[in-house]
């Protein structure tokens, strides 16, 4: 296949950035999208030009590192990660537009690479169960119904790629936050910290500058792991529930100290 690529090039965070057009020939339909970019980069290096920077690592759809806004969709036309998108999804002669995730809390590092550390800070705000190593009781002392465990698992499979944010017109991180809150709220181990967790994670999400959810559903439609917007409903419920719990009426700074 022969393809025309329009790629966002931006030298660094301070550069203005622009689209640059490239031609690639000899694209095999069996290549992954990232392998197609590898081929482009090899030819750029041979020409002495700066290759296109993009994030990737496991290339088997699980690490969540790959990104790319392809023809106006996060991870491209299929509901999968960019590393699992194959060139057989495109046709000979196609023009493909490739951009980085565009959201204020995800500043561009270079070309197609963005900084997603805001997600780590949201998890740091409370996306965990406070348990010290070595103090755990026998695992089978906490029975969990199979369907509850499965539901928690489905929420826990979020790979933190940020496609939900990129797909959202408000750059909302609600699906990401909801997935973690759901995962831990559904399990008995997560119960004691339910109220604090959801309050603090939402506060952090807002502080990072992510927008609000308007129930458009683009996040679920584009999520490579098919995380359901049902989790956002649960997040809202958890948040409301937390508001009725006395403890959470305290200012957040105070909570942070206690924790």
């Amino acid at each position: 296949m022969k393809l025309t690529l329009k790629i966002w090039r931006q030298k660094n965070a301070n550069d203005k950035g622009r689209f640059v057009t490239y031609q690639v020939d000899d694209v095999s339909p069996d290549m992954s999208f990232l392998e197609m970019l590898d081929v482009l980069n090899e030819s750029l290096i041979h020409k002495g030009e700066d290759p296109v920077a993009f994030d990737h690592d496991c290339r088997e759809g699980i690490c969540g590192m790959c990104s790319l806004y392809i023809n106006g969709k996060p991870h491209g036309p299929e509901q999968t990660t960019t590393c699992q998108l194959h060139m057989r999804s495109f046709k000979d002669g196609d023009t493909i537009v490739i951009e980085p995730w565009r959201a204020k809390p995800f500043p561009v590092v270079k070309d197609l690479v963005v900084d997603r550390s805001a997600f780590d800070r949201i998890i740091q705000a409370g996306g965990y169960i406070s348990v010290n190593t070595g103090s755990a009781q026998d695992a089978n002392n906490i029975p969990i119904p199979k369907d509850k465990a499965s539901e928690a698992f489905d929420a826990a499979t979020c790979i933190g790629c940020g496609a939900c944010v990129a797909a959202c017109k408000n750059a909302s991180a609600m699906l990401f936050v909801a997935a973690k809150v759901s995962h831990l709220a559904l399990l008995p181990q997560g119960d004691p910290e339910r109220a604090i967790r959801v309050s603090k994670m939402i506060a952090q999400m807002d502080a990072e500058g992510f927008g609000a959810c308007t129930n458009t559903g683009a996040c679920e439609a584009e999520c490579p792991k098919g995380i359901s917007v049902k989790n956002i409903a649960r997040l809202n419920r958890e948040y409301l529930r937390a508001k009725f719990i006395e403890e959470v009426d305290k200012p957040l700074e105070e909570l942070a100290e206690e924790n």
Partner: protein
Amino acid sequence: MKLDAKIPEGPLAEKWERHKFNIKLVNPANKRKYDIIVVGTGLAGASAAATLAELGYNVKAFCFQDSPRRAHSIAAQGGINAAKNYQGDGDSIFRLFYDTIKGGDYRSREANVYRLAQLSVNIIDQAVAQGVPFAREYGGLLANRSFGGAQVSRTFYAKGQTGQQLLLGAYSALMRQVAAGKVQMFPRTELLDVVVIDGKARGIVTRNLITGKIESHSAHAVVLATGGYGNVFYLSTNAMGSNGSAAWRAYKKGACFANPCFTQIHPTCIPVSGHYQSKLTLMSESLRNDGRVWVPKTVEDAEKIRRGELHPNDLPEDRRDYYLERKYPSFGNLVPRDVASRNAKYVCDEGRGVGSTGLAVFLDFRDAIKRDGRAVIEAKYGNLFDMYMRITGENPYEVPMKIYPAVHYTMGGLWVDYNLMTTIPGLYAIGECNFSDHGANRLGASALMQGLADGYFILPYTIGDYLAGMPYEKVPTTHPAFKDAEREVENRIKKLLSSNGKRTVDEFHRELGKIMWDYCGMSRNAEGLMKAREMVVKLREEFWSDLKMTGVNEEFNQTLEKALRVADFFELAELMIVDALHRNESCGGHFREEYQTPDGEALRNDEEYAYVAAWQYTGDGNEPVLHKEPLVFENVKLTQRSYK
């Protein structure tokens, strides 16, 4: 140098308890006076960093990814073993220990492996307490399955994403400590050198991958948790960024490198489809529970299938060779990884391979679907089948899957004693980065177990023993040793960036990988290894003279990142060959063609090679020196591994 494994006295089952009692403690109030560096944040690194911080130490954690949640442990599909015996099927700590020792072809330490089996039980408790959503039975208790050659059901799993769930558990524990201010996290930062002062590891030199800034970090101890070096083969199941540089830099600073030639080849990967291919994708080994492995009996039929003249479904039963079931009737398709891999190679070498390249065998679910129905197979393996379909464009419910072995895990790594300390005092290596627990072959569902045992339950105890004897004083990063290391790193970068040859880093890496796969891969022989060594040395010279580079250091420069890693792979590759050449026996993942039984199985030589080969660096261009740590077996009897 004398290798002292520091294995505690006493009966096997009591060694770890006794040792824990005997090691020195650091007073809780004094722990905050010590700084510890942890490099790598996969299962081993994240669990270690979190636990050390919980204990009260100041931890600096480093990873090259944008977030510790991306570490390659996340990709482990299968599961994690633990001797819980929840199923009451005869499992025990001793049986897990025995299976692991035997599975490793008697090339690992009894004391370490026993401790691993003991701690496996605590790992599950810890993970469940963190909210890891393992598979459950209807009654609410944990479910188990059997996996990778085991005859008991001891594997805990979360669909095909166990690694992901365990890593996210360790990652959240780590994030909790970051929020508490006990861990300082350095993402997108890569180790470029280890700093040794007065014979002790006292820090590291790093490169900020966004700005290119070279920085020094000082500490009282350094922990490497940087994974395996399988990417030396270019094509492997490892993540693209996985590299051996941290371990290699430590080796060049005096840490011995043990058993570098022990590479695990995983039998069930999606075969290579073209020269552009960047990595190989693993299909979970659990597929072998129901899939039947076969190739055509004759070369003629295989050729017809390759050319597309004959559909595999149309080949009659009597013209198919279910070679694993035929040769190993009691284990069948579930033989261990090295046996399954080698046999796939044999049938393809005979010309009976399938797929466009002839380098593939079938993994056929036809009979399982006929027996159990499509719905049952879909419930068990649906996500794996979808993944296969996405990558290959073929429907495995209708056409047999094609698989081929691929480089997966490196059992070799930095030599460590029972405390997980390398031969450099104060430098520790944990997880896949050390050599310790898997011997010459790794059994399924044991890597996650080792990473977490090391990080949560072993290192946090043993590092205290070392620190208790250390003064609190910190070495400033202005110390000449740091400045020397920085200068060395800067020179290496300058040298690479000034190279204006014709070939790209990837081209060199691909070529190196091919040499390694052809001559130091699934099977080796002395002649091939000697040839490979010459080829690697020659290619390495070309790398340093004919490399095409772009950009500068002071920017986000992925070409430079790769070049630095590949430069180290070139040196590591040679050591792997040297190690493979000296080990005149076959064991586990190391199959020397000269040493096999009459029916083609690995022929160990326990008289002469029941030792750990630990190599010491003696300068560029000099032969490394071999130190042997004899392996003493007091609790198991060495037997021929037989899966007939």
